[in-house]
């Protein structure tokens, strides 16, 4: 085998130009595939993580049936023991308590539908850095009738720091909810949807507002890594009473976004595969040229007793070599570009921002550095080489030394 590898390598080296032209085509495809996938995946990941860290979390636990209607009547006790159970799960690192409902907010003779969420200020801040998102004013103090609102909401309702907002909503078990809150801060939450309708107030205030003493609508959980939530979800399913509680992963909480992402990714995969198909045809052409050019040499080798299997191994290794050179070169070129767009994401202009808003995405182009994207190209190229090798497999088997040497 070592001899075959040596032969293959030397053959590649011997016809440097051909090797390079062919490898260049693979490099081009690999580079493009890596850059495109990284940016696409990164942009989605950014949107998703933004969304999850802003609000949704990786896992949520509710009273059973809550999520379907988000009914203010399906609440849970804010029990420290329960929270400890949640924190004890493998991977779980933060648990946020929240009480939320839709409400109508009025101020300055203007009225708008908003989402009023009661949070534990310190806890929520460690969860989604609300304090850093403030563009004006200061953050909430527990137990005071204060509110932090999104920047778009502040603009449309002409609410500034210090102004008062009146809220009405439906409270627990048919109670009427009425409350008033002083704006202490205005924040840019990143996602347009939140900027337009988010009102944060301290949890105790919300419990008072919704007439839901010591009750919560959700426990929001983050784990140390988004890739390991399955384990945590499983732990909850084993340790909590699933007749009373529902345990939902982010995939179940925002299914349509996950699906939109997979459609987007699937469609670009198709384009990439077609690209590889075209490149594959190019390589097949090269292989045919190579086989033809070296027909005499192969004839001699076969005559003196080299079996077609070994000849095939040599040629297949040469094709593989070209593929590897191409993938490696493509990766090397792609890496700095991907890294650059990872470190310096491009914020899109206002015009694009509006389009992205329609899709609930943050108008930011950001690449992700994910080794899996690189591996994937290796796999694709390997499969391509496998397919291309079918041609030499048969042609070398058929090759008759006498005919080959009659050139």
């Amino acid at each position, binding site marked *: 085998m070592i*001899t075959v590898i040596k032969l293959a390598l*030397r053959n590649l080296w*011997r016809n440097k130009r051909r090797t390079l032209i062919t490898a260049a085509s693979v490099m081009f495809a690999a580079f493009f595939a890596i850059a495109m996938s990284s940016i696409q995946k990164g942009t989605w990941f950014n949107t998703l993580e933004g969304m999850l860290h802003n609000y949704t979390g990786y896992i949520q636990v509710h009273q059973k049936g809550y999520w379907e209607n988000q009914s203010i009547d399906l609440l849970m006790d804010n029990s420290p023991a329960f929270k400890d159970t949640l924190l004890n799960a493998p991977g779980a690192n933060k648990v946020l308590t929240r009480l939320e409902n839709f409400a109508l907010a009025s101020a300055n003779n203007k009225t708008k539908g908003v989402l009023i969420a009661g949070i534990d200020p310190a806890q929520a801040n460690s969860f989604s850095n609300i304090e850093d998102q403030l563009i004006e004013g200061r953050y909430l103090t527990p137990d005071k009738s204060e509110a932090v609102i999104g920047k778009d909401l502040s603009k449309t309702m002409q609410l500034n720091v210090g102004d008062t907002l009146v809220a009405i909503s439906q409270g627990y078990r048919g109670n009427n909810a009425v409350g008033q809150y002083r704006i202490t801060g205005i924040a840019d939450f990143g996602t347009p949807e939140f900027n337009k309708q988010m009102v944060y107030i301290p949890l105790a205030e919300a419990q008072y507002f919704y007439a839901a003493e010591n009750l919560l609508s959700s426990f929001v959980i983050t784990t140390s890594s988004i890739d390991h939530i399955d384990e945590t979800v499983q732990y909850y399913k084993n340790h909590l009473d699933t007749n009373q509680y529902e345990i939902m992963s982010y995939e179940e909480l925002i299914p349509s976004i996950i699906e939109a992402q997979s459609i987007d990714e699937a469609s670009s995969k198709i384009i990439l595969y077609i690209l590889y198909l075209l490149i594959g045809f190019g390589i097949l052409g090269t292989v045919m040229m190579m086989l033809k050019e070296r027909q005499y040499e192969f004839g*001699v080798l076969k005559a*003196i007793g080299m*079996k077609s299997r070994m000849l095939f191994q040599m040629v297949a290794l040469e094709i593989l070599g070209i593929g590897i050179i191409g993938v490696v070169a493509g990766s090397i070129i792609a890496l700095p570009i991907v890294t650059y767009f990872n470190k310096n994401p491009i914020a899109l202009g206002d015009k694009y921002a509006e389009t992205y808003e329609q899709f609930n995405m943050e108008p930011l182009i950001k690449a992700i550095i994910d080794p899996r994207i690189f591996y994937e190209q290796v796999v694709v190229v390997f499969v391509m080489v496998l397919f291309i090798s079918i041609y030499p497999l048969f042609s070398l088997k058929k090759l*008759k030394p*006498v005919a080959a*040497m009659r050139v």
Partner: protein
Amino acid sequence: MKNTIIKTKNLHKTYQETKVPVHALRGVDLEIKKGEFTAIVGPSGSGKSTLLNIIGGLDNPSEGSIEVSGIDITSLSASQLIDFRKKNIGFVFQSYNLIPVLTALENVEFIMLLQKRDKEQRRKRAVDLLKAVGLGDKIHNRPNELSGGQQQRVAVARALASKPSFVLADEPTANLDSTSTANLLDIMENLNREENMTFVFSTHDQRVIDRAHRIINLEDGLISEDKIVKKNQPLSR
């Protein structure tokens, strides 16, 4: 007979590649014994390449039988045939004999590698053979760093590497100048004399014919003349 190496009987070969069938061989009976230094001669199209290919197991006869070292090679499968060639026959072709990416030494070693001989044995024999063909100082040169004559000498060394029953050379001097031709023939004759190696070569080069011990003349696919011109002179041990 024990020291018969090649024996053909009523060999026919008809090519059907074009519309008109070509009868390359039309009944060749031939016997070559161990230690012979035989030239098969004849004009282009006389069938000498076809005969050589069949003797070498590279082509099948349309009719007739061929035994090499007592084995009917027409009965071997393709894969068995490759093994048989590897062990029993050394080949020297007109040109492009060598693997271009390997050095002279590696080219000679290569065939022994295919036979899975161990490394040291392989290396030693390859060096010895290259010395024997007068290329002891060029063992690390690649084919394109060697002259045509030197390349053919490497080819001879390679042909001998597997200790074959005989060496088959198809117009080995076709692309060589006089000096190289003489040189190559000296080496082959030496090997014939010293190691009792059997050589069969096709040629229409008068310089080669002059050196042959036995001359088989082929015309229109039939042997027209078969004469022994010189006695073999195996070295007495």
